[in-house]
């Protein structure tokens, strides 16, 4: 199913991958300081073909194929960002963020602060997340919790082509390092975007579905899952609100809390591991800010706390499903 969104006509229908590509192409046309670093990004356009066509338009000086050196080219991007460029780094699988963690956590995130505000690092780390692609433990993680914990980074998790495009364009213009997670399974998802250019602000949640009985806060891949659950819940007589924070840092606490104060019930769903994951922070914030409005504890659904297994019969058990979200909402609303 496709998410709802309100955009000015005329609108076009494009895939999530196209949205990412359009955002990059527009910003690269606008600003020659925008360059791309990554493995197989040029002629190959990445294994997901997300960047296809960019090297043809912008050339190999701006769409730079690198060796398999995540730490190295992320570090190069940090230095380039400190000296006038706006690099966009492509980390093919989010699992490989671990290889560039020092560059992201100790360098990119801290340079502005350590320099007392004199140096800036306007760069974007685009990477992927999401399981159920049968890619096993080292190609399936959703590591947004790791970078969300680090001050100095902004973290974006778009769930629709519209959001992906608008948020990536803002990320590229942001003066800070931004980690941008794309769900691999969502690249072919279609959605409408306006003809004209647009940018979406960080820290502004999008209410993907309005409802009054329960608030489901969902990120990235889990937004579709939540919307599907919400559809099902309708027949249970439960009217679910689905909120997509779109950025975990900054987090739009106000929108989430306002909703929970109305519904008195909240579920948080994210595809990262549940333990010490993104859902913990959001649930804690809800409990802090809407405590007396809550009828029941905030429920959290995340990936099972296991490395992602290869075998489809196992892997399918690791990621939250619409059925689980629906069931959780039914329990919360006393219908289970």
């Amino acid at each position: 199913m496709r998410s709802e969104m309100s955009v000015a006509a005329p609108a076009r229908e494009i895939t999530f991958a196209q949205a990412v590509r359009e955002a990059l192409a527009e910003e690269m046309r606008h600003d020659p300081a925008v360059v791309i670093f990554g493995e197989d990004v040029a002629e190959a356009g990445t294994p997901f073909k997300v960047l296809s066509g960019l090297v043809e338009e912008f050339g190999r000086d701006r769409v730079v194929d690198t060796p398999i050196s995540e730490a190295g080219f992320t570090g190069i991007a940090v230095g380039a960002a400190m000296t006038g460029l706006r690099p966009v780094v492509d980390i093919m699988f989010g699992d490989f963020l671990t290889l560039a963690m020092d560059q992201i956590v100790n360098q990119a995130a801290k340079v502005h602060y350590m320099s007392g505000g004199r140096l800036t690092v306007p760069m974007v780390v685009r990477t992927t997340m999401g399981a159920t692609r049968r890619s096993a433990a080292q190609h399936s993680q959703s590591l947004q919790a790791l970078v969300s914990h680090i001050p100095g980074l902004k973290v974006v998790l778009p769930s629709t082509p519209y959001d992906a495009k608008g948020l990536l364009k803002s990320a590229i213009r942001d003066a800070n390092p931004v980690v941008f997670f794309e769900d691999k399974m969502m690249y072919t998802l279609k959605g409408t975007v306006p003809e004209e250019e647009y940018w979406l602000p960080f820290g502004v949640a999008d209410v993907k579905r309005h409802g009054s009985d329960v608030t489901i806060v969902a990120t990235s891949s889990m937004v579709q899952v939540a919307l599907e659950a919400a559809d099902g819940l309708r027949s249970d007589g439960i009217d679910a609100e689905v909120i997509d924070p779109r950025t975990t840092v900054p987090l739009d606490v106000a929108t989430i809390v306002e909703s929970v104060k109305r519904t008195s019930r909240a579920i948080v769903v994210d595809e990262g591991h549940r333990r010490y994951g993104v859902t913990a922070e959001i649930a804690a914030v809800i409990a802090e800010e809407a405590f007396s409005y809550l009828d029941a504890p905030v429920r959290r659904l995340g990936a099972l706390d296991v490395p992602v297994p290869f075998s489809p019969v196992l892997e399918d058990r690791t990621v939250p499903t619409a059925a689980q979200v629906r069931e959780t909402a039914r329990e919360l609303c006393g219908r289970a």
Partner: protein
Amino acid sequence: MEMDWLPAYEQMLRIRIFEEHVNTLYRSGKMAGLAHLYIGEEAVAVGVCLALRPDDYITSTHRGHGHCLAKGARLDRMFAELLGRADGYCRGKGGSMHIADQERGNLGANAIVGGSSGIATGAAFSARYRGTGQVCACFFGEGTLGQGVLYEVMNMAALWRLPVLYVCENNLYNEYTPAVDTTAGSMRARAEAFGIQADEVDGQDVRAVYAAASRAVERTRAGEGPSFLLCHTYRFQGHHVGDVNRAYYRTKDEEDLWRGQRDPLRVLAAWLLESGAATEPDLDVVTAKVRADVEAAEAIALDAPYPDPSEVDQHVYA
């Protein structure tokens, strides 16, 4: 006296035919995920593993089926793993990119490029520490030369004279990018800078690989420190099964050249026939046997049960 090369031929053929079946299984939708075929590079794994003891270690890569079979893995359990079945080497939890086979010293394929270089070097440390005389062969593609950790561990291996053999499979491409575009200077100098003994060999000639690997393993086992073996080879298929349109990164001519003239099976077959070590019928017998073995193994695996879903949270902790 020249050794009997027919078993090496059989081993390479086993890998080739296994991979052909894997290809078919994937294309017919019976296998899920990613499969990186080793076809064309068989002489490297077989030549190196021939130079190893059964208790020696290896570590492998995303393109690991060949290493695994060359070290003695069973076909049926390999298929079962790739099919996500409970009888697979990892009970279906690892899949194509993570097959490990502890009994034969295979410490596992690794889906992080360069990810096994630390493990291999650590296994060598352990072998030396425990005084077992084992060595570890660390297989990796030339793309791993981009990963800093390789230099970190080569430095320690050299400092501590660890019994590890770094086997660099230079198949000319890092995925879809030519290695010349990602690799400055000289590949073997990357190891020599650490004082590591390096050698280079035609990776399509299993006899040459075996000879070079034997020399390297011998000195490394003798305590003379790590070795680095650069094997020039080529993958005949796409980077993974889905990589079908390759014209944007390599020419059909190049592929035809390697497939036609540099096929490790043909190279060895030609030598076997020329030297009189085997006849065409001998080779046909081997082929028939291997085909039958592979088919039988595949059938067993296709019939094997999936793991019980409750296994999903087993083996997180030992």
